[in-house]
């Protein structure tokens, strides 16, 4: 079973985690068109590559970010969500 390195709890098996999918920014609800909003709701970027994803360590209720290569399923980095703006800018 895959191991994920939780930034708070250390390396744990996959069964202790739940994923909420890719980190995405919603379009501004007051400014976007219906089409843009619907695309945000129902479409996902399916091209394989390194994605930032939300992951939760369920026993501790801790949400964090994992950067995962969806083609190889290798997790390249995990970090606290507070680091997102800095990493997203990079």
């Amino acid at each position: 079973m895959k191991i994920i390195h939780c930034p708070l709890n250390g390396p744990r098996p996959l069964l202790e985690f739940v994923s909420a999918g890719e980190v995405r920014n919603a379009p501004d609800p007051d400014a976007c068109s219906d089409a843009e909003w619907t695309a945000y709701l129902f479409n996902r970027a399916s091209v394989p590559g390194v994605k930032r994803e939300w992951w939760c360590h369920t026993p501790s209720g801790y949400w964090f970010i994992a950067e995962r290569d969806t083609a190889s399923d290798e997790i390249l980095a995990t970090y606290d969500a507070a680091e997102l703006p800095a990493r997203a800018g990079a």
Partner: protein
Amino acid sequence: MSTGEKAWLRLAEPLRRFGVKGPRAAALLEQLALTVPATPNGWSPLRASDRDDSSNVVGRLGSTEFFVEEGGDASGIAALEKLTREGSAGAYPVLREDFAVVLGGARAADVLAQVCNVNFAVLPPRVVVMTLMIGVSVLAMPQETAEGRIYRIWCDPSFGPYLQSELEQMVNQ
């Protein structure tokens, strides 16, 4: 594989439990002269005067949540309850009615190996582990006592009967 005496399981002594969380939770503990564990997911004896094998402990769950278990008159917990109820800003009360057991004996690690996928052997001392045991979220705390290494295990009280029944079966085998 160790041979020798078995493992034993017993309900934790009648102790009180309480939690406090928030940005000023640590400050509140300090204010009441209770120890603040230095690292996230670490634990300490509750007061400087408590010994390493004391049943009065404070655990740090993550960064800003603390878990206290205290026996006797539980004065520390009483003080925490009072201060947090009065709305101490940034330090919020967490009701803890956990089911609590202690697992010990020469074969305690073998029992744990049947329910928990954490390698306790390589953990640094004084850790609190938040993990799953047979499908239940638990806190597990290894502690060295006069009886050897024990494991203090807490979980949501509604899962208590299930966890107890399964652990007892393994211990008695």
